[in-house]
């Protein structure tokens, strides 16, 4: 017998009011589980992505840059900013005992650009030595950055082949990064020659807050990895003692604040998911109890024509399963429609790195949400039937 001819299916279709009420309940449950899990997963992926992309044990910045409004704002919040120190600091740090990989970066913020309504962060890297951003650039771009070539973050409204102008320096978009859920999504990357040309142009136009710098002699930060056999603390201590006028920051400690916020937010969301599940389960048990009470006469007729007790239970269970699966699917679809397009809005609201999981993980989350909804539907019908 086809499902359309089955008794549970006909009962559901021909009792639209009752079925719609149950569907709304399960849809709400599934939406909260799926949507909530996407948000918590995206936050966790965002943090993991940020950790991976910082990629250095220690960041060394000018002393005045190590405040909330500069370094962390740029790296963690994706705001724009720039600061400089003499490039000799790079040589001093490189020469320290315990220092392994070392690479400098130069920052600049655009006033406006063709791609964006807001200023963007421009990051100059040294392709020869860079070990933090280059791996990700290579993955999206495939080769070293040429002069006047830029690679743009995923959230910027610029595409490969576009020509952009920063401080009247014309650059060519040679690549676009994959989504990272971090500050890199709104940044523009270029090599040292290109960013120095932009700094020069900004100085000539009196648009740089640092009027007396020599672009060829400055850097913004130094990324440092500890050499084998040395701990991060060893390197941190050596840099702090031997190099003056700088602030060395352990990247892990920079992220720890964000991890704490993330834990707080994800704990609240998880608690809400559990509460919604329990609440929906209780409401559904009540709804099924009312429905079963209302249907006592119907069940008596079924008994009269030969339905066994287990058969009656099966009918109720099948109805619950059908409603739960359909409601679950609608909830998952709504979750995709609501959460995916508004990912960046959620990111801004929470002010935390946010990277929506890939299709595979999304599919897994959808299956789990569907299973949880179906379980709640079936469980509540069984609990109601037993009472």
């Amino acid at each position, binding site marked *: 017998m086809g499902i359309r001819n089955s008794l549970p299916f006909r009962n559901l279709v021909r009792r639209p009011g009752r079925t719609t009420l149950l569907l709304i309940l399960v849809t709400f449950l599934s939406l909260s589980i799926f949507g909530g899990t996407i948000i918590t997963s995206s936050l966790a992926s965002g943090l993991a992505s940020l950790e991976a992309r910082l990629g250095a044990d220690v960041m060394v910045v000018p002393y005045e840059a190590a405040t909330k409004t500069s370094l962390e704002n740029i790296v963690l919040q994706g705001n724009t900013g720039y600061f400089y120190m003499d490039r000799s600091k790079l040589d001093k740090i490189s020469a320290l005992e315990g220092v392994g990989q070392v690479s400098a970066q130069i920052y600049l913020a655009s006033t406006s650009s063709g791609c964006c309504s807001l200023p963007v962060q421009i990051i100059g890297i040294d392709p020869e030595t860079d070990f933090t951003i280059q791996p990700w650039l290579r993955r999206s771009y495939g080769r070293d950055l040429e002069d006047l070539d830029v690679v743009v973050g995923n959230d910027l409204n610029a595409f490969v082949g576009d020509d952009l102008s920063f401080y009247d320096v014309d650059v060519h978009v040679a690549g676009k990064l994959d989504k990272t859920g971090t500050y890199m999504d709104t940044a523009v990357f270029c090599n040292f020659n290109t960013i120095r040309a932009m700094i020069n142009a900004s100085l000539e136009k009196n648009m740089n807050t640092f009027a007396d710098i020599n672009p060829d002699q400055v850097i913004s930060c130094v990324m440092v990895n500890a050499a084998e056999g040395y701990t991060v603390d060893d390197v941190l201590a050596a840099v702090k003692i031997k190099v003056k006028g700088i602030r060395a920051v352990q990247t892990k400690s920079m992220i720890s604040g964000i991890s704490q916020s993330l834990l707080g937010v994800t704990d609240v969301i998880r608690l809400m998911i559990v509460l919604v599940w329990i609440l929906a389960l209780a409401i559904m048990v009540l709804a099924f109890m009312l429905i079963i009470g209302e249907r006592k006469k119907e069940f*008596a007729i079924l008994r*009269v024509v030969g339905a066994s007790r287990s058969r009656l239970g099966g009918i109720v269970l099948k109805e619950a399963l059908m409603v739960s699966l359909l409601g679950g699917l609608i909830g998952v679809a709504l979750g995709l429609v609501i959460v995916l397009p508004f990912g960046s809005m959620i990111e801004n609201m929470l002010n935390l790195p946010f990277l929506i999981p890939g299709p595979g993980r999304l599919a897994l989350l959808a299956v789990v949400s569907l299973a949880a909804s179906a379980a709640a539907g079936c469980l509540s019908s069984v609990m109601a039937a037993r009472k």
Partner: protein
Amino acid sequence: MMAGLLQPTEGQVFLGDTDLYRLDDKALSKLRSKEIGVIPQGQTALYALTVLENVLLSWTLYPDGADHEAEAMELLEKVGIGHLASSMASELSGGEMRRMAIARAMIRKPSVILADEPTGDLDDENTQEVLKLLKETAGQGTAVLLVTHEKEAERYADILMKMDSGRLSVISTCENNLPEQNCF
């Protein structure tokens, strides 16, 4: 109790050689579906189903792979509501619903039909029709046990029994050939 729906506190209920209450619920339910047609008192339709689906309910629960729609239609014609086959049960009048319950009880050609006040809410004409139908069914080899307050039913019974203060007594059988009995 006779339909295998209510466990007796004492005694046994036999259908042929089968002691009903020695069967488990599953086997008893299957037996009831096949051998015992019940016409309960009151309005006993599944309102989410059509008239035809209500009549075929037993076959829906225990399908045998065959299509029994033609038999159901024949029964519905017989009880006079063939034209209502595709109507929803909720659209029927009390009398029509009663006829539908009779057709539903007869669809599996059971050994026994237990009818509880089958003419309770019918007018005189319909009462005659239903009683004739049950008598006809009895004539085809089905035992029909009818519980009723309907005096008219006496004319159709082979055996008349009376329940008085909890005691059941035989008043007459066709062998007595009473004038009020319409014995075949």
